[in-house]
């Protein structure tokens, strides 16, 4: 009993450590790619090729002044970043990184990720409200409206994945894809994949949906009053959420840690590579996509954003659901 708990804690610590390291380097990754996209070099000074830049940034954040505004609700102001980080980190507990490499192999993994996504909204609302500043407040309201709107098409896109796999367990979803000859769910449900991809951008408040942080209108949205390490926690949550969304995309649509069977039959040598490599490759493909979008697409207006969510993505996801239901019934009994 006690031994089990100790082993579990060690596992959690290892996963958390690895994830945090990845998050630190996601920042470096983003700055480098954005730099090259804009004909600059990105970070080069700290360490070889600027590789120690994330640690320099981290140390800087640690020693910055931790400022709480006078009119703020002190307790909620402190809790808000913790809620955001906790919700994102909890999502990692159900994500299978490779066959059997999952902290909690529960039957409702998919729903847990969705639930944690919707609980994360509270951190943002509370941050906006407790700052006692109009920019933060409006930013918080906007962000929560955005996340709630985009949760619906995202949930319906995932519903189609459920119909195809017949399970809410994320590992079982991957195993269900392994049985298909092409090995991925993206093929019958390319529409659902597209909807999820766009919603993933909106859920993590990334460009072109980074409305809550639109500098020209709202200074920095709900982050306006935050400084030092509390701000760092929000930052950490945003990048971790990018990893969660990328993992969900690769697990639900691209077959997770597996390769399509026709590929492995053609080149059996690919089987020697551990599954985590393919998983990370897929995840980093989506991370690159996130950054690529940030480097190319301008920000939407808020009414455009809601219009895209409700008038475009929602009907699209419903169409996808309908098509998948027919395909499942007719072609895959």
């Amino acid at each position, binding site marked *: 009993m006690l031994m089990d708990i100790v082993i579990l804690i060690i596992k959690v610590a290892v996963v958390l450590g690895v994830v945090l390291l990845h998050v630190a380097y996601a920042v470096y990754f983003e700055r480098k790619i954005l730099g090259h996209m804009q004909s600059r070099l990105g970070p080069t000074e700290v360490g070889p090729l600027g590789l120690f830049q994330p640690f320099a940034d981290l140390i800087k954040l640690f020693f910055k002044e931790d400022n709480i505004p006078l009119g703020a609700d002190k307790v*909620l102001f402190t809790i808000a970043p913790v809620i955001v980080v906790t919700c994102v980190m909890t999502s990692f507990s159900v994500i299978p990184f490779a066959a059997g490499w999952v902290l909690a192999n*529960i*039957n*409702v993994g998919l*729903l*847990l990720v*969705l*639930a944690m*996504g*919707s*609980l994360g*909204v*509270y951190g943002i*609302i*509370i941050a906006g*409200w407790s700052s006692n500043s109009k920019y933060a*407040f409006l930013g918080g*309201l906007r962000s*929560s*409206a955005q996340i*709630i709107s985009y*949760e619906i098409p995202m949930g319906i896109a995932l519903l189609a994945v459920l119909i195809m796999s017949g399970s*809410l367990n994320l590992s079982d979803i991957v195993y269900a894809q392994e049985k298909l000859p092409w090995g991925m769910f993206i093929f019958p449900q390319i529409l659902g994949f597209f909807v999820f991809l766009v919603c993933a951008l909106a859920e993590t408040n990334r460009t072109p949906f980074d409305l809550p942080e639109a500098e020209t209108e709202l200074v920095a949205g709900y982050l306006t009053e935050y400084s030092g390490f509390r701000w760092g926690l929000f930052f950490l949550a945003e990048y971790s959420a990018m990893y969660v969304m990328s993992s969900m995309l690769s697990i639900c649509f691209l077959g997770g840690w597996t390769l399509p069977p026709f590929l492995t039959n053609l080149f059996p040598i690919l089987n020697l590579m551990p599954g985590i490599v393919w998983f990370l490759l897929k995840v980093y493909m989506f991370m690159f996509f996130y950054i690529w979008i940030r480097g190319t697409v301008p920000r939407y207006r808020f009414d455009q954003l809601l219009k895209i969510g409700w008038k475009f993505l929602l009907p699209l996801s419903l169409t996808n659901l309908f098509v998948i239901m027919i395909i499942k019934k007719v072609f895959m009994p």
Partner: protein
Amino acid sequence: MSVPLLFFSYFALATIVLSLIVITRKNYIHAVLWTLLLFVHISGIYLFLNAEFFAMIQMIVYAGAILVMLIFVIMLLNVKHEDHLSDVSSLPIPKAFLVFCVLGVLAFTLQVSYLNSTGKFSIDLVNKISDAKLLGQVFYSEANLPLIIMGVVLFVPMIAAIVLAGKRSDE
């Protein structure tokens, strides 16, 4: 005391204490946030009943959607600390009477219908076929009439919302 019992007592006690905290807050936003904590504990109790699906739905629907709507309404209406919020002691007698009546009916029903029989949906059955699947089977076979009625009931406020919004834009 066994470990599951210990955890269950924590969740049960926390649910009661948190409900009391919720209804005694003066600040509405604080009350809503305590409700959030309450909902998380309730989904913990669902987990004890082997109902993981319900636990997650509780989090997504109640904590994730309905409470956020509540927060939105409170923030947009800009309700400040309410002074005329009546506390328990000044509750009018008819209201208190009604509350106790409802509680009595609830207790009676529970005693008659639940404690005396285990029903056919036992924990073994739920474990055998997952609870999401079982719920679907019950919903679309035995309980299809209540499901349809529930759908109609939920449809009415939607029409109301559309009518209200339509009126606003005519002016």
